[in-house]
């Protein structure tokens, strides 16, 4: 029940985690403070849109990430997200918007890692299925 920053920090499952120079805060929550929320469908209340500091549409980004449509997420500027976690904090449906957005950003970054550098002259561009 120890978190590293109450909004975006990672909960630790043991108290033997070392405190390093990147540890900014340690928050202790009692058992009654933990949220056991059940996610329901998005009700389009637009509270996440109102609180977003970088003018994204988190509800739509979460839905697209959930369906694995990362290219559309990228077109909607998901990389602008600063992961402040406000959208997930105000969500009445208790959707894990922050996790979904992180998942999508991670997938987009991985997709770029797989592209070979441009300098390799013998790089053959084509469909990944093997046919030309």
């Amino acid at each position, binding site marked *: 029940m120890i978190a590293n920053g109450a909004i975006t920090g990672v909960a630790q499952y043991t108290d033997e985690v070392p405190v390093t120079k990147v540890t900014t805060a340690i928050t202790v929550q009692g058992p009654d403070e933990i949220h056991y*929320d059940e996610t329901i469908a998005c009700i389009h209340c637009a509270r996440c849109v*109102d609180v977003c500091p970088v003018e994204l549409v988190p509800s739509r980004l979460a839905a697209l990430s959930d369906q694995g449509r990362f290219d559309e997420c990228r077109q909607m500027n998901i990389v602008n997200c600063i992961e402040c976690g406000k959208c997930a904090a105000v969500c009445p449906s*208790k959707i894990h918007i922050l996790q979904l957005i992180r998942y999508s950003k991670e997938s987009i970054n991985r997709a770029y890692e797989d592209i070979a550098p441009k300098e390799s002259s013998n790089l053959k561009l084509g469909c990944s299925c093997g046919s030309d």
Partner: protein
Amino acid sequence: MTFTISAPPHRKDEITFKKINWSKMAALLPVILISIYFFGIPALGIILAGVLSAIVFEVAIQKVFNQKISIADGHAIMIGLMVALIVPPEVPIWIPMAGSLFAIAIGKHIFGGIGSYVFNPVLAAWVFLNLAWGSIMTPVSFPQLGAISNLVLENGAGLLIGVSPIALLGGLVLIYLKYVEWRIPLSYFMTTMVLALLVGDNLSHVITGAFLFGVLFIATDMATSPVTKNGRVVYGILCGILTVIYGHFDNYVYAAFYGVFLANCVSSFIENVTLPRPFGTESYLQNKYRSIMKKIPFEKLGVSIDE
């Protein structure tokens, strides 16, 4: 020592979908009480019929399709209550039941349940009832504000909801508590007022219980309104324009419902064209300003711009 872990954020708002629905119903409570006082036992029967049949149909549909029973979130109860509130008090008891069936089955569940419906289930049911049983659904009279006391108790009310416009202001508390967003009610109300004055309609016909109900409770329904900030203003203005067009040629009681119903059709298009620009880029007005300033030939006019 091991701990229970949960995903961030670890501090959340207390607001839930359940809380939103039940507080909307609490805001409608004064109108319910006044309509029962005014119309007597028939109003109570209609409201009970609407709410109970909505619960029964919701449970039945979710049992049949093996879904999780979600009565406790209050959404079905709210739909049944709102359907019962927008029928005249003289209707037979099966009218609110048929309305609840249509709202729950076709308005809500066919489109995919909570948050997925295109049309507000309450309005869909009202339009269905009005077209199917037009003679029964026509109210005895349409209200007109004669004196200030009519704001408190409207003697000419034709629908249950029209009985007391001032009791509907509980919706303002919802806006104050931020359970409902202020942009849609404000833009809808202001547009209707301004346009009604422009076309020369008497405002005593405009400010009715049905119109205020439409502004504060129907138009602000979450799934059927756009999520973007600008889109909500556009949606409210569109609702107002449609309401005045219908109300100018017929009456403002039907106009509030038909106006919002027709605006529901285009709300997703409004949402798509008003997506916010990415952070740090030019806004629409900045872009226009720059393109206009580029076209002005400052050098030919003899104006030198200091570097």
